[in-house]
């Protein structure tokens, strides 16, 4: 089995599957979007923006999670990196769409963020202090910078990847050279993105690990998504002949690692704030650990950490395509819940309230995002043809 003797284009069966997924995703997306618009009149525009914000943050997380794994594999090498390259590149190519989908948040700023109201700021010394950072023009400039930077990275890695397919000898070096700075940019942009889009919903609260919580979450979402996708692709040629249990085993280890990193960051933040019990900080947890929110918190401890952790320790499970994909999908669902738990209690003002729009928004955005993703995935062969380690990756798990 050599790279030369292989056709990495999607087989006819897979192509028809992909068309079907695309149509279904778009249908779900359009129906969801219509429901959301109806919701403006049935519920309130506030609810629309709130549900939209957390869903948007979630899909940005999946996309950038894929992008950062793509960059990381240029630095570390390894067969796992070769098999995820094309799906991760396709996910990165949805970033222009995500930039467009930021517009509803721009429109919703007055509904979402207290600091955008001059009269509230005027009566609050803390918000006055933060005004040089938390004001609408600077907020938009920063958002443009993040989205612009991510789009640039997505463009760069896709362009050189395409040239590598055509046989460019410098392409791999070019990509490896930008991977380090790219990850650095990702780290900083995610930190400030988390501060701007989520942390500033509660303008009195702060936590230095907050950006890292989002980094870990994105890494986890990205990996869970890539594993799910690879398993779905593995039923048809060409991926049915490429993927071995060894590949999935490696990816499963990374998934387990990210589950632990997420738990480590989340628990560190909790323990430090709980032990300090300072009025500035503890309020954030008071809101999230009382009323109905406490059950969501408990669900996160069990479903976002304990259960996946215990299951993923098993070597056999990581080598079982269906079971691993099942856990990955479960983790993606818990990622939804986690982002929701981070965002929503700031809006609910002490009450526990879940709206039907909180369920429709992720479907609407997810449908549109998946449609864009599958469209991009169809455009290129499913394995990177010019990858120098392609042969090694194909042999991985077959020795």
């Amino acid at each position, binding site marked *: *089995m*050599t790279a030369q003797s292989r056709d990495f284009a999607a087989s006819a069966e897979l192509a028809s599957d992909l068309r079907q997924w695309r149509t279904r995703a778009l249908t779900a997306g359009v129906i969801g979007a219509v429901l959301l618009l109806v919701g403006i009149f049935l519920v309130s525009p506030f609810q629309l923006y709130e549900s939209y914000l957390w869903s948007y943050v979630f899909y940005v997380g999946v996309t950038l999670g894929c992008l950062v794994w793509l960059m990381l594999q240029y630095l570390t090498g390894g067969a796992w990196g070769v098999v995820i390259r094309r799906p991760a590149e396709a996910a990165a190519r949805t970033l222009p769409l995500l930039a467009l989908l930021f517009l509803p948040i721009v429109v919703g700023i007055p509904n979402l963020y207290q600091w955008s109201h001059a009269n509230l700021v005027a009566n609050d*010394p*803390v918000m006055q*202090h*933060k005004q040089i*950072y938390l004001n609408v023009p600077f907020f938009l400039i920063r958002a443009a910078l993040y989205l612009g930077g991510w789009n640039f990275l997505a463009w760069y890695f896709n362009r050189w990847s395409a040239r590598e397919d055509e046989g460019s000898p410098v392409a791999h070096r070019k990509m490896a050279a930008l991977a*380090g700075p790219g990850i*650095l940019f990702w*780290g*900083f942009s995610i*930190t400030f993105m988390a*501060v701007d889009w989520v942390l500033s919903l509660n303008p009195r609260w*702060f*936590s*230095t*690990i*907050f*950006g*890292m919580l989002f980094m870990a979450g994105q890494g986890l979402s990205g990996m869970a998504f890539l594993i799910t996708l690879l398993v779905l692709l593995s039923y048809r040629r060409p991926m049915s002949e490429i993927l071995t249990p060894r590949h999935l085993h490696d990816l499963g280890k990374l998934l387990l690692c990210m589950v632990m990193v997420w738990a*480590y*960051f989340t628990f*560190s*933040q909790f*323990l*430090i*704030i709980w*032990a*300090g019990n*300072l009025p*500035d900080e503890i309020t954030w947890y008071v809101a999230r650990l009382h009323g109905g929110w406490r059950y969501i918190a408990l669900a996160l401890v069990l479903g976002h950490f304990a259960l996946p952790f215990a299951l993923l320790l098993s070597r056999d499970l990581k080598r079982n395509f269906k079971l691993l994909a099942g856990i990955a999908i479960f983790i993606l669902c818990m990622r939804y819940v986690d982002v929701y738990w981070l965002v929503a209690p700031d809006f609910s003002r002490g009450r526990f309230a879940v709206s039907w729009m909180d369920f429709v928004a992720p479907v609407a955005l997810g449908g549109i995002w998946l449609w864009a993703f599958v469209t991009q995935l169809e455009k290129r062969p499913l394995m990177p043809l010019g990858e120098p*380690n392609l*042969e*090694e990756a194909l*042999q991985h798990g077959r*020795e």
Partner: protein
Amino acid sequence: MPDEPQVVEPPEPKQLIAPGYTFGSVTDQIATVVLTGRTPVFWLACFSVGLALLFLFLYAVALLLAKGVGIWGIRVPVMWGFAITNFVWWIGIGHAGTLISAILLLLNQRWRNSINRFAEAMTLFAVACAGMFPLLHLGRPWLFYWLFPYPNTMNVQPQFRSPLVWDVFAVSTYATVSFLFWFVGLLPDLATLRDRTLNRFARFAYGILAMGWRGSARHWSIYETASLLLAGLATPLVLSVHTVVSFDFTIAIVPGWHSTFFPPYFVAGAIYSGFAMVLALAIPLRAVYGLQGLITDKHLDNSAKVMLATGLIVAYAYILETFTAWYSGNVYEGAAIWNRMTGPYAPAYWMLISCNIILPQALWFKSIRSRPVLLFIWSMIVLTGMWLERYVIIVSSLAQDFLTSSWSIFVPTRWDWATYFGTIGLFLFLFFAFIRLLPMISIFEVRTLLPQAKVEEEVQG
């Protein structure tokens, strides 16, 4: 299937050791360092320096026990001073050894094979040095067992909500697992030394230590399982020990200490300084003993890259610390950071920023990473920077805390310095004794890196 033509040549594994080695020559080169009768001048010099500083340490400790901790510069409100700075610094250095031996083993990073042995030894000795400080800092070290929850007639139990008690468990577990991992990894090589030495006494000693290792298939099978399990046990320790150390600070509400990202930031800093120490040890050793073929430029390059990556995480932490101090709008947090930058400890702060953030950016360039001499200098810079970091965090936050009337500046005494340099002596003494008495590179693991070993494997498979 022998008759089926091989379609593909399996890809050439990237060479981690210089070409031309055979199983025999690897064993010879590593074992000779220990079994030779001649001792290089370099070794004698380093060992003497270590021994001299060790005597200084013993003198300083004797004086400390006789007179009490007042001989150090610790005064209210800075009661942690050098002792805790040095504790955190040493224990951080140890982390690279565990990272190399455990995490890189689990990640199948085979380049670790020629540096893991001495990196693990470094861990053990660094933990030994680290352990000195909290014990001496107790004032009455002979009562250290009060830290453990044992049934006693005094009705005194440790306060389990205190991270200082967590430290006792974290560090003692770490020391135990590190020792076991290191010792189990040594067994096959101890047997090699036993079989090769001509000295009767050495044969007896290595024979006892090798615990009857004969290299049978059964031994190897048990060995593989044991080392994998110990690696699995050691991996969480890399994170947990320094996380608990960071809790010593964050669980308190002192401004400049109570920051939620301290756990990952301390772990990154620990690995940062640990890899600096690995380089600081590996570069002179490979030059003196001619081991450039086993500890290649590739190893130095990889270690420098790990240093750069962890250094960037540390840089991220400083930037975010400053941003959050402003963003929080909390006057105490703001004042703590502002004091660090402009107050009495400003020189130390800016030196730490230069050593930990600005200068290490040079490691982005291959031209720096490929020059061992420069890398050695850079590793010294990082070690200094990481020591200063702990010093600034501990001392500046304590010197100017909530109660302005008790603000005071910490001035280290010569006994502070003597104890600090004394532990460097202890470390050098132990490390160079190890170099002389045990194989500093894992013989059998390096042999698996040879191309011959690969062929063997495929014929069997």
